[in-house]
């Protein structure tokens, strides 16, 4: 017995691994090989690029940024940064492109979220007819290419069907749609009005935040719920009314008016931008609707049954039990859809909306031949946007997602 005990460790001693089969050595070797291959590829590509650029007589660099851009950008709508032919520089073209990408993405995200939730809920409607219509919408829009849809809306629907200014489609005096685009009233603030409105908006938001805190505390202590949504709405309306009372003369809405052949004034969204917004919204909404449906279906039936047996009525069951759990499933893929929408806005190049791919990777690249710098910057824009999106996603996941056991 003593013998065997003494021998066992020796017998179990693993045979010595030859160095070429040692995992640590192999790992070192493969990683070294990858680094060497990458270095070789980078050096070769850089050499080829330098040679090719030289042959074409293009000097890589950022010197062209301060040159005047010798072209005009389509659509004269640049809300924050405007373009002047013969004066604007290349770097301003880039800024305008990024600005327009962000504008269309933000509006597209708002529209797609609203429409997507609406269609997603309809898809689950107990009404057979309504559910089938919603399903038809989702399948039709998900299974055809976005580019085709954008071309369709722009060239087959809005451009030929939008009426000339004199026969505009109007909704009251606020919304006017014609060949030139969509006109909305433009709020005009003058003098002290700006200050009063800013102050009242800040005060209203602060009041709502304080009220939320108080309502939560009261509910935890006494169990009495507080109609937070309606109270918040009331605060907002009260703030707006008060501000109007104090600064009524300084505030006005500038409506678009028909002057001669065209509408003037108001805020104008060119028809192409409207078509792009419409197309992106309709397309992305179909995907969001599927997320919404999946999220609601994913909440186990027992959850709502348990809530009902605790005595919660239908509305409270939805609000306190089903929707909070469904949102956990809905929000992560929906945030990815927001990123997809942002990336898809680059298809606008096909219908002439001046976003970053169109004016920077398209027009500016053709004019300057600086393909390396320009492509790197264009892709860089999307990298930054995508990093921001995943940061938002991770932040949401760590805060809201169930803690894993």
């Amino acid at each position, binding site marked *: 017995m003593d013998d065997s005990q003494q021998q066992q460790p020796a017998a179990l001693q693993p045979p010595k691994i030859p160095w070429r089969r040692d995992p640590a050595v192999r790992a070192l070797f493969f990683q070294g090989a990858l680094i060497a291959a990458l270095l070789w590829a980078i050096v070769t590509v850089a050499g080829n690029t330098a040679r*090719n650029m030289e042959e074409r007589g293009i000097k890589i660099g950022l010197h062209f940024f301060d040159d005047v851009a010798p072209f005009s950008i389509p659509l004269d709508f640049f809300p924050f940064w405007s373009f002047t032919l013969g004066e604007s520089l290349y770097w301003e073209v880039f800024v305008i492109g990024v600005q327009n990408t962000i504008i269309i993405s933000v509006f597209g995200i708002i529209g797609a979220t609203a429409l997507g939730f609406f269609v997603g809920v309809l898809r689950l409607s107990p009404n057979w007819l309504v559910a089938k219509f919603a399903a038809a919408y989702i399948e039709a829009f*998900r299974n055809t290419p976005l580019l085709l849809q954008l*071309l369709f809306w722009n060239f*087959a629907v809005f451009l030929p069907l939008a009426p000339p200014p004199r026969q505009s489609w109007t909704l009251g005096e606020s919304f006017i749609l014609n060949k030139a685009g969509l006109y909305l009233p433009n709020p005009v603030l003058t003098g002290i009005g700006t200050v009063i409105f800013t102050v009242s908006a800040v005060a209203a938001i602060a009041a709502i935040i304080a009220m939320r805190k108080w309502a939560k505390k009261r509910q935890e202590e006494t169990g009495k719920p507080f109609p937070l949504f309606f109270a918040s709405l009331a605060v907002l309306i009260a703030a707006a009314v008060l501000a109007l009372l104090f600064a009524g003369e300084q505030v006005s809405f500038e409506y678009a008016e028909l002057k001669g052949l065209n509408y003037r004034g108001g805020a104008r969204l060119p028809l192409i931008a409207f078509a792009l917004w419409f197309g992106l919204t309709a397309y992305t909404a179909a995907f969001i609707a599927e997320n919404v449906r999946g999220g609601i279906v994913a909440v186990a039936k027992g959850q709502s049954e348990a809530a009902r047996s605790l005595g919660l009525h239908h509305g409270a069951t939805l609000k306190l039990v089903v929707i909070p759990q469904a949102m956990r499933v809905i929000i992560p893929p929906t945030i990815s859809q927001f990123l997809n929408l942002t990336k898809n806005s680059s298809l606008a190049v096909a219908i002439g909306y001046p976003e970053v791919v169109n004016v920077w990777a398209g027009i500016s690249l053709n004019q300057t031949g600086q393909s390396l710098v320009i492509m790197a910057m264009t892709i860089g824009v*999307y990298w930054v946007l995508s990093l921001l999106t995943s940061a938002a996603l991770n932040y949401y996941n760590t805060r809201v997602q169930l803690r894993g056991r």
Partner: protein
Amino acid sequence: MAGAVFTPIAARPAPAATVGALGWVRANLLSSPINALLTLAALYFAWKVIPPSLDWLFFNATISGGTVAECKTAGEDGLIVDAPGACWTFVKVRFLQLMFGLYYSGNLDQVWRPVLMFALFVGLMIPLFVRSFRKKLLLGAFIVFGFPFVAYALVHGEWLGLPVADTDQWGGFMLTFFLASVGIVGALPLGILFALGRRSQMPVIRAFCIFYIEMWRAAPLITVLYMASNLLPLFFPSEVDFDKVARAMIGITLFQSAYTAEAIRGGLQALDRGQFEAADALGFGFWKKSGLVVLPQALKISIPGIVNSFIELFKDTTLVLIIGLFDLLNMAETASRSPEWKGYDLEAYVFTASVFFVFCFGMSKYSQALERKLHTGHAR
């Protein structure tokens, strides 16, 4: 008394209002006042949309003849105006061009080549759906790795000594098909490598794979195509010359490989740890472990994911329109802008959309069915 037997009364039929068509209508359309209102709204919507659409698509549509005159009619004041329905004559006349591109619609004696190519493809695909067919894996491998060469030989023609149709003369649905197929076939091996690499223990390899995958996934395909058409020629010595189609194919393949890698990573993650550990315990090395134990199971789980990313790719191939290739969409657009058929772009879009819809909808239904069928308990 002893002889009394309990005879139950036969159950009464359910109330007429809860069964049959009437019951269905009450339960599904009129269950509450709001529901009834919704039904009314939906019926009004359907009445406004469906009959005019059907009129335009079928009842008033023209498909006869071969000239634009068939689609015109005399208006009230004697002027020639467009007929009220769709002009499918346009699609009929330009059909070969929409399917196979300008080279084949111009050389009618060569049309058999793409037709044969598609017929072969369909013929090879059919056994995959036959339950009793045993060698699905072998056939599948041939379709993925062998058939592209057959297709290229047929359509390009040089290898077979046929008249050469160079890649820049390819167009229409055929080009869409080639771009998507090359994308998915080329992306598969790359995707497997990068998915395995992303789960590797070696930090440099893992970092590189994460960077590669996220780099492509963050960029929109259109910037990738711009890059392929503008930067690719710069990266190679000037003797190496890719034509436009090849550039697009390279860009699409690299782009797609990131999405394939993510789909496969999903399969790898769904696999039980025990599988990896069992392979290790058997003393398998990396390639044996991956090839014999991990990948067969992981790929099976990730097939639906791969099919879904293929559907996205199939739709996204239309983006080559922007870099000037004549895929189905661009061909339809161009045809509807030609002097003869100017103004029939709605027909062009509707036709293209229905082609894409048939394929994408079919594939997504197939992928859903596959998902149910493959759900054999491998997933955790």
